[in-house]
């Protein structure tokens, strides 16, 4: 399962089967209070690291003047599934008010 799928499954997103009931809701509330901020912060930290890696290896795709190393070709098949979401994240408008949480 992709990281996105894992997140959706873990957090009870719309596209995954939902478990109903009071206990499930309570678990969700407690998770949201105690851990959700930490999980998203960890995901963002990983995102920034991945951005650096992608810039170094495949930055030329975005017009960044880096000489593509030989190994870019070797990792290309593995990077292809993430390129769209990577471009989307990198090009997204960001602002200081996005940095609060």
């Amino acid at each position: 399962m992709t990281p996105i799928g894992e997140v959706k499954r873990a957090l009870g997103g719309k596209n995954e089967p939902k478990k109903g009931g009071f206990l499930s809701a309570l678990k969700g509330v407690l998770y949201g209070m105690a851990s959700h901020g930490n999980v998203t912060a960890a995901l963002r930290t990983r995102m920034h690291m991945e951005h650096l890696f992608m810039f170094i290896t495949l930055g030329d795709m975005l017009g960044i003047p880096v000489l593509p190393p030989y190994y870019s070709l070797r990792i290309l098949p593995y990077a292809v599934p993430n390129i769209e979401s990577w471009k989307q994240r990198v090009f997204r408008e960001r602002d200081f008010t996005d940095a609060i949480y």
Partner: protein
Amino acid sequence: MNSPALFVLIALVAYGIAYFGYGRWFDRTVWKPDPKRTTPAHMYTDGVEYFPVSKYVLWGYQFKSIAALGPVLGPYIAINYGWAPALAWIILGNFFIGWLQDYGAIMLSVRNQGRSFGPITYEFTGNAGRNTLLGFILFYLLIISATFIYFIALFWHIFPSTFAATAGILLVGVLAGQMLYRLRINVLTTTLVALGLMALVIWAAATFPALQTPAGAWPPDPAGGVQAGGIAGEWSLLVWSVVVCVILYLASVLPLPTFIQPVNYVSFFPTFLAVILILVGALVSGFTGVRLEQPAWIGFNPTGNNPMWPLMFVAIACGSISGWHSLVSSSSTSKQLDVETDALPVGAGAMLSEGLLALASLAAYMIIPKDQLTGSVGAWVAGAIKFTQPFLGAAATDFLKAYFGVVLILYALTVQTLVTRFWRLVSAEVFRGPLAILGQKHVATFVGLVIPLAFAATGSWNNLWLYFGGSNQLLAGLALMLITIHLARTKAPTIYTLLPATFMIITTISAIAWQAVRVYLPAFLGTTPTLVQYPFNQYSGFARAMDGIFVLVGAALFILGLTMAYRTYAAYAAARRAPVPTGDD
């Protein structure tokens, strides 16, 4: 009638009507959320910032993010007018204004591609508007930091067992982080170990005198026989403030998983338990015999220079409405909303729950006799003990004192670590070119702590608090105006948000002006005693200069707030004149 339980029940009913009655009607009439409309969480899913999350998780996240020291300490100032006006503002403020803002901020962001307030302000009011907002937020962050640094230092000074307890909990947090991320121990085991260690730490701090710092009193009055005591006599508060800044510095520069994340995680449990305990204590107070001790009404202007309007409305900083909530709502919650219809339970539900926390805190002050409350901001701890002792046992008094004392500190510390880090990130964004050095990690953190430290160590707390409340509520008013502009652009009814926005903007700008002109300016001019606190007030030149700086801070907040308000009203007028949009909003 003489028990707080009745008033808590009345507020519960009022909040129920706000949510199920006014809330749903407002929803149908104004926002018209559509469960079939694709939210940014689905449209831009990236598994990092945008992904759908269940409403229960988001409610918990939103509540945890907005609940801090504001609703706990604000009622302490508000009760100076009697508990009835404070209670009325907590209930009515929530009913007509508070939840509208939190919920509206989420919907505003959802209907604008999940963007946060910066880009939305840019779109609605232009680049100058965005820069004004940025300037305002920078001042706001400094004031928040000064206020929270002051309170942490104060609580360490007046509650002898809380420093060891706080230090122990911070260490437990760091240990939990190492267990989770380095040793790969599962979350449940780590949590249980952390809970056990935290209970042990608080018990040890409450039990062993060797772990307790010398007891102190504040404000000291050597002429009246009240000595400062504490670890460094009259300089205790300064010393403790420096210790707070060292901790915040580490929190800001260390990686998130090393300090802030695990510390905030373990801190959640004692703080949340305290809210539950106090609420239960308030609800069963009819059976436990806890009685109201405060008068319902004292007066409109009891001290002669603190009129109820506008000051009480900014004193209860987050219990009725808060600008911080709108920043949280639009920066992260809106990006993870599964369906639009979840916005009401998440935004409005979390805000009304925060109102409940404010109410429980007010109740904790209502049961303390007036002579014990005056001058003792830590009275919340005494009230919490009074509520909970009947069912937790009288033998646990020392433990409860350490526990509720450290809960107050954790409320401030967990938010302040994030605020200090946010300051650093904003500085990196703002300072460019020749000022780029101010955006460097260590320099930005240092600057972001030294200025608040100077304010905290020298400023009188209730005036600082009113600046904090004023800027916080003003931000809320501006957020309501942004919501109103969006509604005007989409030709939806605007009166229900325009009126609260106008009330909040007029009230908060008046409060800031009052503080600057009627409180700090006379002190600066020497017509009233300085507001700088002991022992700095012994150095008249320095005290006069600090009073002057506080006047300038007030003036800056006033001008930035007024400018921003003008820009939002101009944008609103333009939106009203614009033709009806043809596409989907």
